[in-house]
């Protein structure tokens, strides 16, 4: 006990001696290796078994659903995406899709009809001429890709919220679902659909929307990641059922708000 009193506070003299004598195996060292082994095991498991295993994937999807709720709470319907001057536009604006540029679907302008359905009063289809006649406005905003890169573009079109009112949509419904010419789809939340910058886009950089950017109509949603901005849109449904989407169904976060 007298020896203990001389030792500096906080030090176990027995361990100090072991350290000094470099005695191995040291219990702490063994403990470290066990710790390292379990960390390594964690890395291996998470890299293979857990990540591919249905239980972990289910758990991660539950958290992703929770994150949808958190993002919906964080979403301020009147907060606008920052806008930029013409000089800030990224040229050339990157093409990005799950197909290559020459595989982008060709939609015939003359026979195109936007199908409208679900919880709306007026389910008549819209020709391109009728859509072009809607009041339009231009926005220069940042497109943020889920991959991390971003680019600033110029989009011109009609406010989706105006269009939803025009067709007598039930804006108390939870979702708006979009289907694209080649089969892509997205479901978005109603507050985002009603956001003042959510746009039915007909022009990019003042020109009629080129095929690669989604001719004849893209839904431009600056408050969501790029993959939630569907191109070549041919149908729109107002619904209370989440109909999912191309990437969302494969594990990308559903809300994907910015």
């Amino acid at each position: 006990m007298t020896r203990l009193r001389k030792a500096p506070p906080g030090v176990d003299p027995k361990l100090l001696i072991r350290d000094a004598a470099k005695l191995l195996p040291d219990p702490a060292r063994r403990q470290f290796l066990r710790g390292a082994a379990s960390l390594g095991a964690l890395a291996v498991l998470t890299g293979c078994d857990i990540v591919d295993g249905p239980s972990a994937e289910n758990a991660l999807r539950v958290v992703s659903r929770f994150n949808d709720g958190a993002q919906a709470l964080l979403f301020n319907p009147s907060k606008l995406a920052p806008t930029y001057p013409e000089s800030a536009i990224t040229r050339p604006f990157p093409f990005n899709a799950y197909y290559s540029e020459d595989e982008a679907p060709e939609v015939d302008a003359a026979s195109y009809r936007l199908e409208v359905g679900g919880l709306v009063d007026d389910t008549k289809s819209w020709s391109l001429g009728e859509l072009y006649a809607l009041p339009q406005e231009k926005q220069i905003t940042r497109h943020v890709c889920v991959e991390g890169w971003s680019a600033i573009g110029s989009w011109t079109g009609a406010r989706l919220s105006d269009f939803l009112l025009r067709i007598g949509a039930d804006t108390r419904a939870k979702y708006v679902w979009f289907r694209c010419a080649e089969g892509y789809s997205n479901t978005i939340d109603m507050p985002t659909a009603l956001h003042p910058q959510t746009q039915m886009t007909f022009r990019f950089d003042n020109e009629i929307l080129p095929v690669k950017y989604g001719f004849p109509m893209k839904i431009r949603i600056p408050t969501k990641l790029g993959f939630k901005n569907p191109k070549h849109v041919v149908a729109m449904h107002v619904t209370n059922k989440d109909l999912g989407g191309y990437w969302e169904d494969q594990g990308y976060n559903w809300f994907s708000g910015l």
Partner: protein
Amino acid sequence: MTSVATDRDRAWSPATAGGVIHPLWVRLTHWINAIAMVVMIGSGWQIYNASPLFGFTFPRGITLGGWLAGALLWHFAAMWLLVVNGMIYVMLGIATGRFRKKLFPIRPRQVVADLGAALALRLRHEDLSIYNAVQKLLYLGVILAGIVIVLSGLSIWKPIQLQELTALFGGYDAARYVHFFAMATIVGFLLVHILLAVIVPKSFRAMIVGR
């Protein structure tokens, strides 16, 4: 405590009670943070690979998530663990006075002296409860890097809802670089931190059993 304290007094004194170096809350938050950090860094590397900022990518074998969607699921799940645990740690660190006692003051001259001793492998670790100046600087630095990585991460995640914060980092694209360098700082710290835990095993023991 008086200078004539008996063994019995010492045994009852809270300062030396059981010779605890790291109270339970420090050890718990430390290891929860370690798990959260491993997941955040591993998944973050996979996310980085989808759109690299520099001319390199991270080897797949050391990343987490398998592909971009999987990595994002891990990243945005572990972020809650990292942030909630980190907030508890910082609040208790301030409230209990541990930060003030352990990390301050940091005197530049002492840092230089201790750094020289450390590089010459002459820095002593008799008393694990007292940090040398280099340790103080590194621990304070990694706490600050932790705060920066969370704030820059929020800027990237919510560049519209939190656009004022994103602007503080110089915009969305700049915030990605800040986030990357904060990660690099933390990984650099981890390499030194783990190496030293191996060299001074009793410090590792202390973070598990407390003393």
